[in-house]
């Protein structure tokens, strides 16, 4: 399995990358970790004629603080996220989810920018970024713009990225001190994409849920925010009846594809279970 022919470019700045992308047109693609794109090229499901390798651009690397946000450069790898003390302390759910992505080799190469820009419903970071209220910075020939993760996903492999734009960083608000969190992912084996997964970030006050956000991975052609499910748990102590209601509200918006991971009904059913487990674990961690 050898990909089709292409020309290889390795720009040294975001401006050069954007210029190359817009000059070379539709058949040019950014190359990040390559761990979604290269397998697709080998299967000839993608055949870009120009690859713009982002590895030479230092400005796309690294994790920094900006006010109450962690700003993560697009070319930061999952491995680097796992090694970051800032992430482990301020956003432990990001650490927990990154560890559930693929396997060590893939995590050394795969980047957060590639994961969120890819538009594959199976990717784990998009639903998590929606749950955390993250914003993506996009740079194009006409300048930069910020798009909320929640507005970015339009269909399978179809995002708000315009031709010629690259995603340069992800800005994530640090959740409230003492928040509870959990990323629950059902997969067939270590290293697999989710059969269904749920992200929960919540705060508790006097034993009751004060705020709650729930995101869903791989149960629809885009990642989802389960707003009704989150609303159902506010003000409750997550008793059995509430958990049942929340799972049902989440299942009601799921529309997974039947595939090797199971038929539609099964994937919805386990999606509801992931929501229940994530809510319980998040609550148990809240201070």
């Amino acid at each position: 399995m050898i990909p089709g022919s292409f020309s290889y470019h390795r720009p040294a700045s975001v401006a050069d990358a954007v210029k190359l992308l817009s000059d070379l047109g539709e058949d040019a693609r950014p190359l990040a970790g390559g761990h979604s794109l290269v397998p697709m090229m080998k299967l000839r499901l993608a055949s870009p004629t120009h690859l713009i390798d982002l590895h030479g651009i230092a400005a796309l690397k690294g994790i920094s603080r900006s006010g109450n946000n962690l700003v993560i450069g697009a070319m930061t790898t999952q491995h680097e996220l796992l090694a970051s003390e800032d992430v482990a302390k301020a956003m432990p759910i990001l650490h927990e989810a990154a560890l559930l992505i693929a396997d060590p080799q893939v995590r050394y190469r795969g980047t957060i920018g590639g994961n969120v820009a890819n538009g594959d419903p199976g990717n784990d970071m998009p639903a998590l970024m929606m749950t955390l209220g993250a914003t993506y910075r996009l740079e194009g020939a006409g300048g930069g713009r910020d798009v909320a993760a929640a507005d970015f996903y339009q269909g399978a492999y179809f995002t708000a990225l315009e031709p010629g734009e690259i995603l340069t960083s992800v800005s994530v608000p640090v959740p409230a001190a003492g928040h509870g969190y959990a990323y629950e992912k059902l997969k067939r084996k270590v290293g697999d994409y989710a059969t269904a997964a749920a992200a929960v970030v919540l705060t508790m006050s006097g034993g009751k849920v004060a705020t709650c956000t729930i995101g869903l991975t791989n149960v629809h052609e885009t990642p989802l925010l389960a707003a009704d499910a989150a609303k159902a748990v506010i003000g409750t102590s997550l008793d059995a009846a509430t958990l049942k209601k929340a799972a049902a509200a989440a299942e009601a918006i799921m529309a997974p594809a039947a595939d090797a991971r199971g038929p539609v009904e099964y994937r919805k059913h386990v999606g509801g279970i992931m929501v229940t487990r994530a809510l319980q674990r998040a609550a148990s961690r809240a201070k």
Partner: protein
Amino acid sequence: MAKTHVTMKVNGAEVEGLVEPRTLLVHFIRENLGMTGTHIGCETTHCGACTVDIDGMSVKSCTMFAVQADGSDITTVEGMANADGTLSALQEGFRMMHGLQCGFCTPGMIMRAHRLLKENPSPSEQEIRMGISGNICRCTGYQNIVKAIQYASAKINGVEFREAAE
């Protein structure tokens, strides 16, 4: 497609070659350099047989282009023996603990375990199993591979290797 000139360090020696941009690193290593220790098992980034060590990372060389490795420092299984030609702790571990049957996955397992032990010289059994979760073996059931890595870990740390009671 025009070929590109690449140079890199492989197992301590400078090498060079002309590659098409679409040439995968694993093909460059096997075909241009004639080092066939690095195997191709699946080509779909799942099996880990093609794992090599690049600039301090374990990488599946079937999912990276040779042009991307220009200027980098690579170790393959051919570079794993000690300088005097004796087997390294990991290689010895695989031999002593019967960590292989057909041996097809072994180079990738050794290269992955090499980086795992660099990052964590005393991994728990669970950490070893998670650490090699990107490497598939069709033969051994992993038990002896885990033991081989535990053997190497003990040897690197200068402690006596004791098999856990089963």
